[in-house]
């Protein structure tokens, strides 16, 4: 909103895009806060085909530590977000 001349343009479009950008920024900031808060917590991961895994969440995109699989515990693993349907963590 601080850019000079923005208000004077006064078109519907510029007002709309400003509101969209604000909403996008707020939603994204909340998301990143929640993701960073999940780091190191024990998570449950639900994948396609009813596959469920337990793992400690490492970092987004989505890396996990100590992945528990039917074949044993993997010390670290990367999960592709496209393979995931949902994941959850307990609140502190």
């Amino acid at each position, binding site marked *: 909103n601080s850019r000079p001349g923005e208000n004077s343009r006064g078109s519907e479009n510029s007002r709309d895009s400003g509101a969209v950008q604000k909403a996008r920024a707020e939603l*994204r900031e909340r998301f990143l*806060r*929640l993701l960073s808060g999940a780091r190191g917590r024990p998570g449950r991961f639900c994948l*396609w085909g*009813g596959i469920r895994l337990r793992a400690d969440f490492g970092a987004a995109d989505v890396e996990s530590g100590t992945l528990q699989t039917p074949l044993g515990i993997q010390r670290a693993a990367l999960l592709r977000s496209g393979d995931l*349907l*949902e994941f959850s963590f*307990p*609140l502190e």
Partner: protein
Amino acid sequence: MNDWQRKSPLDWETYVNKLVKVVAVEKHEYEGWVLTVDPVSATIVLATFPENEKGSLSFVMGHAVQKVEILREGDGEMEQRLAGILAPQESHAYSP
């Protein structure tokens, strides 16, 4: 890309602080209070507070979402509870 992923941030924002039921692929259903929707991946983040249990956070990936139905609006108390999840203690250090 599904209908949910195509929504505008202004649409997603209307779900924040509301109790919703998310219908996902493979007949999964999730119910909880919306904390946010990631505008990049359309992932919806829900908080659930089961009685006599610790609450949990659930991230439903945008590509898995089929339908989101609003069940209830949040009151002031619930909004505060949700804000508490978003404001970790260490953020106080950055306050002026």
